[in-house]
């Protein structure tokens, strides 16, 4: 890989040992990819938390401080280094807990202490503590063509496809290295030719709710895996929440990081533009039968209709989604055998507080939580066995991670389950 003068200087240690290790990682990573060079980025999103039980145990065993944790887990450096301030605009993604709900999430005081120390450390480095999987909901909205280095598969697919920004799915170590250097391998979705469509998806039915968009994403992701699907035949322009759920699902059943919707997304004004004159590898039909198949695949884990946990906010809910939930909840109460937890970014929660939505949710017996989710934080209500979710992504991960059942359905079906303690959802 060819390095520019400033990159070589960092690799030679001219900017200290931490940036040297960061550049060394980027070179190893770039060469593994087969990248020709690095590119400048001024927009990095990553996760660095030290609250995960394995990381905590590792830190304890090695008597390591947070610098050492960052060195190992964010720079792949066994040597503990003093970590300098970040060089470029850097944001923290979701964390492992919501300390404001320590009681509900059964958080150990020691874990909360490590969380607080981590936050203080990251803010000293200059990292924006957005603490969400949806930075694009709280002010980090990249511009078309902007070279980014983001983690979080659901956010990567959103900014590539909906905003026209350019990022690959970075990992914890490459995001950490990018924060310290302002560099990332120039590979994959940073280049024009890799952003073109590969598979044509002929959508023959109307796709309406966020759950519907999740089903479409789950179906398409499983077929195209890491390729670039092009949706044709979408008659109604979807909103932010729908595309958020579509992308999250497609990057869970598969590894989709980029898609096009003809007439909707910025690099697909026409079908021709979406494929850029390239070959259509395969054409996929999406009709009623395919929608049903996706529904059955998402709903493979649940058999027990007594629901004791309803989890909403994967990816983190927008204010519009919280408003919708409040309309469904008003006049009802969460069933005594059930818990309702809704996850959103802290900044959106502040708006929900101001709008009176937090009060509506809490008076109904639910909680509006921030910073994490049940899969990332491994936090569920005590004794939860059967969950209901409106996110295909969460339905995919939660049962595998927490060993509980999960029903998938619409937001309205989930709220009904929360208020009755029973799952009565079906594909309508």
């Amino acid at each position, binding site marked *: 890989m060819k390095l520019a003068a400033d990159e070589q200087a960092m690799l030679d240690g001219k900017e200290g040992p931490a940036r040297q290790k960061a550049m060394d990682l980027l070179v190893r990573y770039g060469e593994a990819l087969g990248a020709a060079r690095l590119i400048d980025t001024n927009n990095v999103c990553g996760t660095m938390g030290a609250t995960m039980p394995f990381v905590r145990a590792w830190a304890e065993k090695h008597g390591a401080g947070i610098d050492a944790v960052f060195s190992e887990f964010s720079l792949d450096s066994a040597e503990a280094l003093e970590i300098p301030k970040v060089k470029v605009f850097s944001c923290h993604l979701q964390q492992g807990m919501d300390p404001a709900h320590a009681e509900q999430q059964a958080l150990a005081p020691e874990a909360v202490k490590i969380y607080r120390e981590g936050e203080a450390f990251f803010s000293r480095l200059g990292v924006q503590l957005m603490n969400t999987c949806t930075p694009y909901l709280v002010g980090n909205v990249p511009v078309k063509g902007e070279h980014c280095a983001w983690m979080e*598969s659901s956010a990567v697919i959103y900014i590539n496809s909906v905003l026209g920004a350019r990022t690959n799915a970075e990992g914890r*170590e490459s995001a950490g290295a990018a924060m310290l250097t302002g560099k990332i391998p120039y590979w994959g979705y940073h280049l024009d030719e890799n952003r073109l469509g590969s598979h044509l998806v002929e959508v023959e039915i109307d796709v309406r709710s966020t759950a519907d968009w999740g089903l479409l994403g789950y179906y398409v992701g499983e077929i195209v895996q890491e390729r670039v699907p092009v949706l044709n035949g979408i008659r109604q322009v979807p909103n932010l929440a729908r595309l958020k759920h579509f992308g999250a699902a497609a990057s869970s059943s*598969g590894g989709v990081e980029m898609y096009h919707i003809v007439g909707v997304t910025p690099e697909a004004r026409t079908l021709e533009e979406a494929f850029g004159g390239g070959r259509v590898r395969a054409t996929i039909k999406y009709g009623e039968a395919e929608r049903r198949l996706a529904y059955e695949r998402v709903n493979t884990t649940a058999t027990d209709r007594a629901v004791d946990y309803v989890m909403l906010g994967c990816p983190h809910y927008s204010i519009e989604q919280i408003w919708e939930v409040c309309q469904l909840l008003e006049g009802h109460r969460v069933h005594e055998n059930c818990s309702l937890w809704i996850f959103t970014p802290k900044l959106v929660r502040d708006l929900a507080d101001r709008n009176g939505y937090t009060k509506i949710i809490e008076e109904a017996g639910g909680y509006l939580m921030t910073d994490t989710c049940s899969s990332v934080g491994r936090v569920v209500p005590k004794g939860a066995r059967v969950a209901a979710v409106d996110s295909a992504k969460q339905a995919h991960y939660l049962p595998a991670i927490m060993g509980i059942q999960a029903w998938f359905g619409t937001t309205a079906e989930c709220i009904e389950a929360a208020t009755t303690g029973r799952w009565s959802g079906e594909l309508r």
Partner: protein
Amino acid sequence: MNTIVLRGRKVVGGCAEGEALVTRDRISGWGGLDPRTGTIIETRHELRGQSFKGKVLVFPGAKGSSGWSSQFHVARLAGVAPAAMLFNEMTTKIALGAVVTHAPAITDFDQDPLDVIETGDWVRVDADNGVVEITKRST
């Protein structure tokens, strides 16, 4: 002895050998495996319940969360990483994952390793030279 040789491109250098664990399903990192044991946990995965600890992992590629590398990173620190990784589809998840696993890794093969290698075969990986030597499990 019946051995087969594959050639490919080095992703991460080094030499290792071990028993093959082969899957045609792509692998999810975060939420797809337990990094403390190396066991696949994804609900509908064909390797569900099996660990890649010490195995030469042969698979099409990566999918799912961007927490892919961090899970393999933890698996290495927990002592349960694969001995080597052989795969077909290059993505940032798998490249970074292979780098932080510190295990030899190869891609871009002259023949599809999924067609040649079966679970239980003995596989020697020389990633520095991009050479894989397969001894078929005695039948």
